[in-house]
């Protein structure tokens, strides 16, 4: 099973990705999806700008996905991460994990997100509603802690 990794400026469709994963087969019993969306932070934010390291992002996301495939019996794994200017309510990231049973699908999706958060080379900066360019979003210690759960 080869994970599907995509890094793109354009939006994505969860339904299309699930269809691509599961149409025409009947061995999948469980699909877990995670969608990360841009929040407006109570109206103070007009956009998030996502910078990434083009050479490394795909390599690192693939590495994380390969780890997931080695740890869980998956029948499908998708990770899509957007970059560029993303408006509140828009999608930023998608992870899909498919397996025969739910435990593997849940854990693999959860693991993927924890590792994408702490290892995939993307950085968010805020564009504020008052017209100013906000600061770079700071990494959270809780994200590192979350990733530690899997080691």
């Amino acid at each position, binding site marked *: 099973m080869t994970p599907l990794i995509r890094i793109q400026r354009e939006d994505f469709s969860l339904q299309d990705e699930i269809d691509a994963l599961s149409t025409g087969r009947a061995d999948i019993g469980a699909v877990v999806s995670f969608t*990360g969306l841009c929040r407006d932070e109570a109206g103070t934010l007009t956009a998030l700008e*996502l*910078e*990434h*390291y083009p*050479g*490394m992002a795909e*390599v*690192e996301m693939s590495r994380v996905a390969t780890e997931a495939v080695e740890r869980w019996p998956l029948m499908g794994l998708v990770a899509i*991460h957007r970059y560029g200017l993303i408006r509140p309510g828009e999608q*930023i*990231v998608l992870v899909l994990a498919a397996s025969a049973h739910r435990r593997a699908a849940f854990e693999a999706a959860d693991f993927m*997100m924890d590792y*994408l*958060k*702490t*290892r*995939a*080379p*993307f*950085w*968010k*900066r805020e564009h504020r509603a008052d017209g100013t360019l906000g600061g*770079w*979003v*700071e*990494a959270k210690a809780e994200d590192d802690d979350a990733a530690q759960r899997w080691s």
Partner: protein
Amino acid sequence: MSSAVATAAAGTRPVRIVYFAWVRERVGLPEETLDIPADLATVADLVRWLKARGEGYEAAFENEKIVRAALDHVHAKPQAALGTAREIAFFPPMTGG
């Protein structure tokens, strides 16, 4: 260490250095190719060498522990050997996802 010093005499080697997010902003450029001394052994050695290059670098690496590095697209710790890496990246902790 004495052998490293001996090698240094042998000169420099060119590497591409790329910067992201606020590291990029503080350094003032997204990337550059630099001839670095061949005796720089680790990521931390390179950081110290860069800091001596000017205020922007000094500001970018003000808190060395925060800045992350990658050698040829692979995360690397400060004590990691530079080896023959051709592209070295510096960036803040990731905030994607």
